[in-house]
């Protein structure tokens, strides 16, 4: 299978610098304001409902691509996302966590439902057909490569994949790319608040500001 190369980080930061008039935020993680990718998706959530990114306008959205059988990187990222939302306290309702499976063959709606809600009850899992999955990972420049099963059993495969958390603002614009390198819950919380303050959230427009900490 031909591998798709992920954009080098340097070109990601170049794209961010060519933003469309929005000031580049002082994020802990990589500012992707102004990129012309990571613009949306059209998938099915774990309740069976069709969802697009537009459905979440008014909220700051965290998106993670992974698979439920992943032993380490995925549960870690999802747990950090869940903890970040918990630390936002009562204002956590302006954040939506999403998990998009790169392994729809094994990640059924039921599997996704059980998995994502273990990290936070408001999280939604999304899945698609193989074509929809490929289209979505291409749009978000997410690399995934299913490795050959090691012992002949077709179910025993591991998937290499980008392990970053994307943050989209309340207007639906991609803003932050949070790599696994140096990622902590605190740094995620800070970036979520910065994205929130940049506007577009329903509660933000009503004049409420996120509380600092619990």
């Amino acid at each position, binding site marked *: 299978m031909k591998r798709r190369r992920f954009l080098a980080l340097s070109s990601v930061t170049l794209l961010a610098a060519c933003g469309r008039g929005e000031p580049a935020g002082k994020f802990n993680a990589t500012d992707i304001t102004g990129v012309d990718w990571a613009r949306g998706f059209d998938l099915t959530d774990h309740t069976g409902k069709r969802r697009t990114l537009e459905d979440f306008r008014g909220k700051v959205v965290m998106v993670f691509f992974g698979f439920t059988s992943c032993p380490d990187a995925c549960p870690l990222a999802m747990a950090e996302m869940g903890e970040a939302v918990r630390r936002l306290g009562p204002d956590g309702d302006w954040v939506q966590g999403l998990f998009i499976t790169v392994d729809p063959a094994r990640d059924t709606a039921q599997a996704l439902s059980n998995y994502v809600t273990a990290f936070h009850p408001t999280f939604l899992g999304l899945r698609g057909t193989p074509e929809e999955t490929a289209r979505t990972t291409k749009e978000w420049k997410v690399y995934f490569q299913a490795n050959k099963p090691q*012992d002949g059993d077709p179910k025993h495969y591991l998937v290499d994949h*980008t392990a970053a958390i994307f943050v989209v603002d309340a207007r639906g614009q991609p803003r932050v790319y949070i790599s696994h390198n140096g990622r902590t819950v605190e740094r995620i919380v800070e970036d979520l608040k910065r994205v929130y303050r940049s506007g577009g959230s329903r509660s933000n427009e009503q004049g409420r500001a996120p509380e600092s900490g619990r």
Partner: protein
Amino acid sequence: MTIEAPWARATVPAARVAGAYLTVRNASAVPDRLIGASSPVAARVEFHVHTADGEVMRMRQAQALDIPANGSLELKPGAAHLMFVDIRKPFKQGDLVPVTLKFEKAGEVAVQARVGGLADRSAAHGAQH
């Protein structure tokens, strides 16, 4: 050689692999190596380390893990873990998973890893040694 807080994460029903973590403390002046592991609950137990290839997290199998003299080896989420391959049944929170660690010098050490929650990022209090 002491093993601290061995723990594993619960798995989803469809998962055939599980991850476990622990800290090895080597109080001796002689370095050692973790050269194998086995468990009755899995076909095999491998060592996996995460290497960052640009922005892609690659999991790579390691044949052995070094433990420095008067030092420690920490297997923790996002860094290195024991991977239980082809588990006989899902890991459920509260289970105790037996695993035998094989050291080049210290020989075999049997421990029990306590299974925590799906969302755990560290060992829960009271993990067994």
